[in-house]
């Protein structure tokens, strides 16, 4: 959204925008209530989502939280919370482009530095399943594409 507004301002320099160019604003206005509602629900359910993702991942493979002798659970929790919060904010303002630019490109290299791609891949796949249980389908449709971007960027080698 913010990226789109910025682009609109640049592209319409010295002229009026066309209806087509303004369409995203109307789309955003229409989805605004639902975005705020989804954002607030994610905020309320944050810990429950994280706990459910963690439990499901442990059932899939407990080694996802270990690296050698080191227990990575707390680190995983911190990282996953951070990604979820940034994702919720990106959904609220409908700006996945800024999420990539300001967070994901950096976080991708950091996750690779720690060889955490496998864990990230499972985390954001499982999180999509958990979110589908927690949110209504129309709420989930707003956040799922962002979680899929997270999975693709953080979870692939």
């Amino acid at each position: 959204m913010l990226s789109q507004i910025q682009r609109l301002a640049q592209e319409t320099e010295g002229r009026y925008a066309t209806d087509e160019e303004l369409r995203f604003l109307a789309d955003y206005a229409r989805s605004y209530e639902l975005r705020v509602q989804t954002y607030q629900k994610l905020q309320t359910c944050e810990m429950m989502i994280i706990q459910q993702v963690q439990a499901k991942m442990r059932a899939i493979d407990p080694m996802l939280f270990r690296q050698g002798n080191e227990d990575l659970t707390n680190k995983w929790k911190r990282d996953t919370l951070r990604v979820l919060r940034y994702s919720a904010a990106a959904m609220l303002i409908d700006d996945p482009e800024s999420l990539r630019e300001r967070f994901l490109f950096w976080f991708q290299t950091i996750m690779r530095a720690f060889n955490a791609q496998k864990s990230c891949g499972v985390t954001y796949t499982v999180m999509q399943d958990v979110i589908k249980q927690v949110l209504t389908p129309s709420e989930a449709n707003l956040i799922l594409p962002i979680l899929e971007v997270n999975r693709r960027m953080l979870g692939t080698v």
Partner: protein
Amino acid sequence: MAFTLSHQTSAKLKNPKKHNHYGFRDFYQFDPDKGTIVDWNNSQNVLTSEDFIIGLVEGLEEEVGDASAATMYTIGCEWGQKDAFFFENWFEKEYDRPMRQTNLMFLLETWWWSFTAQGWGRWEVDLGDRKQGFMFINVFDSAVARTLGDVGKPVCFLYAGLFAGFFTELVKKQLSCIEIQCYSMGETYCKFLLGGQERIDAASFWLNEGATARDIEKRLRAGELK
């Protein structure tokens, strides 16, 4: 008159320990009144065009001829050595931990992110041969090579020097670096070999004899030195 530059955007003042600060609007603070561009780590930046890079490389070649490669390398070395201290300072402030007690890959990615944000290109470090005393670094979108285009020879001496200088300070052991594959040779990315002088000399010799980066990798992994 000396003055200290300080990045003081509201984003940094509110959240000085934020780590993902490499987006354009977070990383730079533009001050039109003072005419400064200060990055997140309080370093002054200067914007340059591709013409500047061409002018620098070709001007130096005109002045010192074949010695321009060694000159650029030396400039890079000094920059890298200084930057190692500069980096240590801001890393320890930002992460509250000594640089040498940090996961190495994380440390290296953190170092290079400032360069990525400044337009020096993305990189990929291959530490697989570290125990044998050498390593490879790939640079995608080298600012120098991208600017000069396909000129049929390696051109990123500044980068080679930068890596040599930085890693020498990091491991406290004299290291050298050579570019063994360059975008300016028609390749898709640049590849650097970092190691002791003996290995770099051997790689330089093989390169002059027409060896490819892949040949050099194979020979080094087979333990060859001449």
